[in-house]
């Protein structure tokens, strides 16, 4: 479970939000919507430990998440808007690099995990290709697999449907539902309202549900 209390963020004296409270239960999908520039990505970066917050608390499965933007570990899995795959590594290597070097799992465990994820994300055929050879939807599924390989407590997506056509968007919806069935907690930032509705999860509206 993710619990966020009284989170506040200002950029150079400008308040982005001053009292953000939300909880996400295990296996839940929470969709964050709101107009452009309202602070959705800012919040996601704070959650991911990439950006410092001013005050508040965040905890994931009872464990506090640091707010100082200098977090270590991979408790929050992130699917960035432009994926940030590592271009010099194949699909499989992108997925296996962190489990190998950071989590220091055994080679056999790393291999088994990546085989399963490649299968789940329908990337088996592409496993030896490089990111530049993939479509947008495929890149996104690599990013999801790469994050899942570290077994994060929550998976956070920033605008997962930007640049995707209708079929690929449907694919994202299917993937998130499959992950939900396996108990993965997910937070999805989007301003694509039909997509938000189709996700069929709880909706958190940044325009009305946050104090600014």
């Amino acid at each position, binding site marked *: 479970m993710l619990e966020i209390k009284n989170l506040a963020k200002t950029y150079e004296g400008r308040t982005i939000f001053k009292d953000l409270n939300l909880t996400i239960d295990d296996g839940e999908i929470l969709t964050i919507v709101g107009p452009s520039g309202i602070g959705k990505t800012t919040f996601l970066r704070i959650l991911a*430990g990439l950006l410092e917050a001013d005050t508040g608390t965040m905890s994931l499965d009872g464990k506090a998440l640091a707010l100082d933007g200098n977090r270590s570990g991979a408790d929050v899995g992130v699917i960035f808007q432009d994926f*940030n795959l590592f271009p010099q590594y194949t699909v499989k290597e992108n997925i296996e690099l962190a489990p190998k070097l950071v989590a220091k799992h055994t080679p056999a465990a790393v291999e088994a995990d990546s085989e399963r994820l490649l299968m789940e994300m329908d990337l088996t055929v592409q496993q030896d290709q490089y990111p530049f050879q993939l479509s947008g939807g495929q890149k996104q599924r690599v990013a999801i697999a790469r994050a899942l390989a570290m077994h994060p407590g929550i998976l956070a997506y920033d605008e997962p449907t930007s640049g995707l056509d209708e079929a690929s968007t449907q694919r994202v919806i299917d993937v998130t539902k499959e992950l939900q069935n396996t108990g993965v907690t997910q937070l999805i930032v989007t301003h694509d309202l039909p997509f938000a509705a189709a996700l069929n999860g709880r909706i958190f509206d940044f325009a009305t549900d946050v104090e600014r």
Partner: protein
Amino acid sequence: MQYMLEILPSLLNGLKMTLGVFSLTLLGAVPLGMLVAVAMKSKLVVLRAVTNAYITVMRGTPLLLQIVFVYYGLSLANIVTLPRFEAAVVTFILNYAAYFAEIFRGGFQSISQGQYDGAKVLGFNRIQTLRYIVIPQVVKVVMPSVGNEVINLVKDSSLVYVIGLGDLMRAGNIAAARDVTLVPYLLVGLLYLILTITLTYGMRGLEKRMNYYR
């Protein structure tokens, strides 16, 4: 032809010296340049100031002067007396590391913040991020500029004559002066050309090998 064969051994001896200066400089200057480039991105103001000053001095004064300074200057000032070869190699490493550092700095700037973010959320620490994610991409980006410097280094190595080291250029000088002919210079030029052409092809090969991704 007979004459060429006669002077060839002494030229090849000089070539050995040239290759020695060249390869030791590369071996030292590339890693040092990378370290300096990383230091330039440091949060420590002092470290940034020191590396900046170092680069300014190394790039802002002639290499020839630096060689003279390290060999004669440090000795006269009673700091340290280095043998000729060591003095030359140390100077070349310090000088070329500064140029490499500038090239690598540009390479680091071409890597998007997203790569650092992607590594961080997966739990990579700073060193792992550099080692496995960023530096491999930097190497690819800087390869053409590094190739240029490598060719420059071959030619710059002739500057070691100033402290009396017997490199290829000096061997040619000696033969030309002794036998009052320009033929040794022709041969010297040919040998430099063979060296730079080989290196150019080698560097292109390396570039190609890194073209498997974009």
